[in-house]
């Protein structure tokens, strides 16, 4: 029997009881679905996760990808996984039917992704990236490119990637140097280097399709000169064969974690024979790419939450079975030892993990709910959901990523010395989680994105909408006995958030942008904590209502545990914003004053 890595009960609670997934089926776009069908999809995800992905979790880490004769070799089961995800319809699960997808609601898709990523994060990355690349092709590519590349990608036979980062241009994409030289043959000749390209090459597929950003020769500097290209590893020769497209793997990185998937360095056009095809408009490459980036960023948060979930359940299992010590006050050494879950400090560590995992899952599903609204709401309401999604994306990416590291670290702590050893999975979860604050935009970039762009854009409209949404839920929670005190706490935090934001905004004019953004990461941490508190308030409200309605006996423990975990978040986590608020408002720009030369010794 597979160990537990995710709670199906909790996912169903979020989908059905907090976010009312079934209500979506009233809209024509989702009317082909019903709850029975959703449950079948969840069961199918779980089966795939338990039988195919989870058994490879450790093996894919221990047998990491390697480069041999110019080809990256991965675990032999990657081919089977890609095939199953292709034929099973998972690569196009959330795509509209018009794209040959399954048109699943985002909420359900989010739950499926959480299930699969918690079983084996690395394994889910291969089809996930292919899905993202296929989305870009569907949105922006010509019909000819679609016909040439999409069918094999949707079938899981060809891998898709995002090729953005270069050795000298990571967070600063405006500095990228990969160049596309126009020809009169309908394609460009590409030349340049890309690094840290996930699944950039491997032998689990027959071809790799890179969605690459580069600069058309002579295009202006900065982001306005960036265009998006489709660059295959092998290109069709027009006679039914695939031939080399002059894309070389120069290395596969040896990473701390997330070792089941290869991260590669690629060289394009060493022999001046690398053909790329323009996708979308020239000069709008980064804009197009960001269509995929927002989704990818939320996907990173999802991966982080999923890994923390798996670590939590491994730790929980250990704490329930490991006898050590006796209850406080029990002095008789002849009494048997108690499982360590009986100790308050161990329960605190478990509550912390559960609070992070389920709070993050809530925020991710909240984003999915807004994505679903974009598919069903009248056009005039789209701006509202787009703004909310834009605002929440940096938090949905960063909170699970940063807190996931602390949560998986606490999972190790629960296991003590055993947790530090390879015999148990938690050390791998810890290593696997460390990538998340880095890839798809570091936490520092997310902080600046939130404070410098998302909160300020359109005269703070997104920020105002967020407050509206949260206060609507505060009002509803005030009416529920037992949850009202949490609602008051959130209201106080929202008020603080408004004050801090107003004070920071005032700095732009007075002290300049550098000081304004100097502690943007801390602002992100504060806002993220408040956003998760909002999610915990929603979950507590739903759980309290379920308890008041007399739940099934088998659900009693779930709801009681939910209530206490919500209270834990408001008692232990939300108060942590106080230190951040103090720092953000004390007006001392010390990181700006600290000259680089002072770091001399």
């Amino acid at each position, binding site marked *: *029997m597979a160990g537990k890595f995710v709670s199906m009960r909790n996912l169903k609670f979020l989908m059905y009881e907090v976010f009312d997934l079934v209500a979506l089926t009233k809209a024509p776009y989702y009317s*082909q679905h*019903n709850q*029975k*069908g959703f*449950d*079948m*999809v969840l*069961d*199918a995800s779980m*089966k*795939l996760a338990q*039988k*195919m992905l989870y058994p490879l979790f450790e093996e894919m880490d221990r047998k990491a990808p390697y480069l041999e004769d110019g080809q990256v070799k991965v675990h032999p089961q990657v081919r089977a996984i890609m095939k*199953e995800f292709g*034929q*099973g*319809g*998972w690569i196009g*699960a959330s795509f509209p039917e018009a794209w040959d997808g*399954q048109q*699943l609601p985002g909420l359900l898709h989010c739950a499926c992704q959480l299930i699969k990523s918690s079983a084996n994060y690395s394994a889910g990355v291969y089809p996930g990236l292919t899905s993202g690349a296929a989305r870009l092709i569907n949105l922006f590519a010509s019909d000819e490119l679609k016909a040439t590349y999409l069918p094999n990608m949707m079938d899981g036979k060809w891998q898709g990637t995002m090729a953005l980062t270069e050795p000298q241009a990571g967070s600063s994409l405006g500095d990228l140097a990969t160049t596309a030289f126009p020809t009169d043959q309908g394609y460009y000749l590409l030349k340049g280097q890309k690094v840290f390209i996930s699944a950039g090459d491997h032998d689990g597929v027959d071809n790799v399709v890179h969605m690459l950003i580069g600069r058309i020769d002579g295009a202006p500097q900065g982001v306005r000169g960036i265009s998006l290209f489709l660059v295959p590893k092998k290109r069709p020769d027009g006679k039914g064969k695939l031939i080399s497209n002059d894309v070389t793997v120069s290395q596969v990185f040896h990473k701390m974690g997330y070792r089941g998937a290869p991260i590669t360095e690629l060289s394009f056009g060493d022999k001046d024979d690398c053909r790329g095809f323009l996708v979308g408009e020239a000069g709008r490459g980064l804009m197009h790419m960001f269509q995929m980036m927002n989704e990818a960023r939320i996907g990173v948060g999802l991966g982080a939450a999923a890994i923390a979930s798996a670590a939590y359940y491994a730790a929980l299992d250990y704490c329930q079975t490991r006898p050590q010590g006796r209850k406080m006050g029990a002095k008789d050494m002849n009494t048997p030892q108690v499982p360590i879950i009986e100790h308050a400090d161990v329960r605190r560590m478990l509550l912390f993990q559960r609070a992070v995992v389920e709070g993050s899952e809530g925020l991710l599903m909240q984003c999915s709910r807004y994505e679903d609204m974009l598919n069903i709401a009248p056009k005039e309401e789209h701006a509202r959901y787009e703004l909310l999604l834009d605002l929440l994306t940096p938090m949905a990416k960063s909170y699970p990523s940063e807190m996931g590291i602390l949560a998986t670290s606490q999972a190790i702590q629960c296991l003590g010395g055993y947790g530090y050893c390879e015999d148990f999975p938690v050390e791998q979860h810890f290593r696997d989680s460390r990538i998340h604050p880095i890839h798809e935009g570091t936490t520092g970039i997310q902080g600046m994105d939130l404070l410098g762009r998302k909160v300020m854009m359109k005269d703070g409209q997104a920020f105002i909408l967020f407050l509206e949404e949260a206060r609507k839920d505060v009002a509803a929670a005030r009416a529920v006995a037992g949850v009202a005190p949490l609602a008051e706490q959130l209201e106080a935090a929202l008020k603080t958030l408004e004050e801090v934001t107003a004070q920071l905004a005032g700095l732009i004019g007075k002290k300049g942008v550098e000081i304004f953004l100097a502690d943007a990461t801390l602002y992100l941490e504060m806002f993220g904590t408040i956003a998760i508190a909002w999610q915990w308030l929603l979950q507590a409200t739903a759980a309290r209502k379920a308890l008041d309605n007399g739940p*099934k*006996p*088998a*659900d009693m423990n779930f709801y009681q545990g939910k209530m206490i975990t919500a209270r834990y978040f408001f008692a232990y986590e939300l108060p942590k914003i106080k230190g951040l608020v103090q720092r953000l408002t004390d007006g001392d720009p010390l990181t700006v004053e600290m000259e680089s030369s002072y770091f001399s010794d």
Partner: protein
Amino acid sequence: MEILVLLKQVPATESLIAIANDRVSIKPDGLKYVMNPYDELAVEEALRIRESQGGTVTILSVGPAKAAEAIRTGLAMGADKGILIDPGNLTCDGLATAKLLAAAIKPMTYDIIIAGHRAVDDDNFQVATALAELLGIPNISMVVKQTLADGKIRCLCTVEGGTKEVEATLPALIATQRGLNDPRYASLPGIMKAKKKPLETRSIADLGLDAAGLQPLVTIKALKMPVERKGGRVIEGDSVAVKVAALVKALHEEAKVI
């Protein structure tokens, strides 16, 4: 090739089972139900036969309305239609279940019936064999490989420590054993299609039977949980020699194994 598959919905093997207050049934509350794993092999084998020979795959199940979920899972794997026989309040033993299935199957056209050799909930092993008897067709159990040719089925079956090869004329019933195949996963398009596939429910009366003729010959008198394992015992002693002596004594006198 008309293929019938017999299927039962059972509690998932990872479920924590508790005995109900009546002491002859289990508490259904909080249990997760799935398709009996041996029946998954049966569905898979039926689909493979259909893929190579053409025809249709029909799933039959005896159970409450909830059992339709397991049939839908089979439809999502690719089966064509389902029939749920709901016995209402009647508690069926293996023979009664076989009688219900026989009544449903007799008017149908079929070449092969595939069943799991047992259900993992009650480990009764009887339904498939009893059904073959009632239908008057050959029954081959514990099948790990089958080939169809010239109106006959040739099967490799597990026997203690080895395999045997047997042959029967169609129509026949075969019962699956682990190793027969690797069941496919339900696909998303399969799940979407499954919702629209025909699934009819029949009562005892619909089958022209009455409850009087289906009363169980075997009744469960009590269910008991396995005895919990007792903790181990550490042999104390000042030296290895003393401990070994105490261990040998315990093995000889208490455990009586040496």
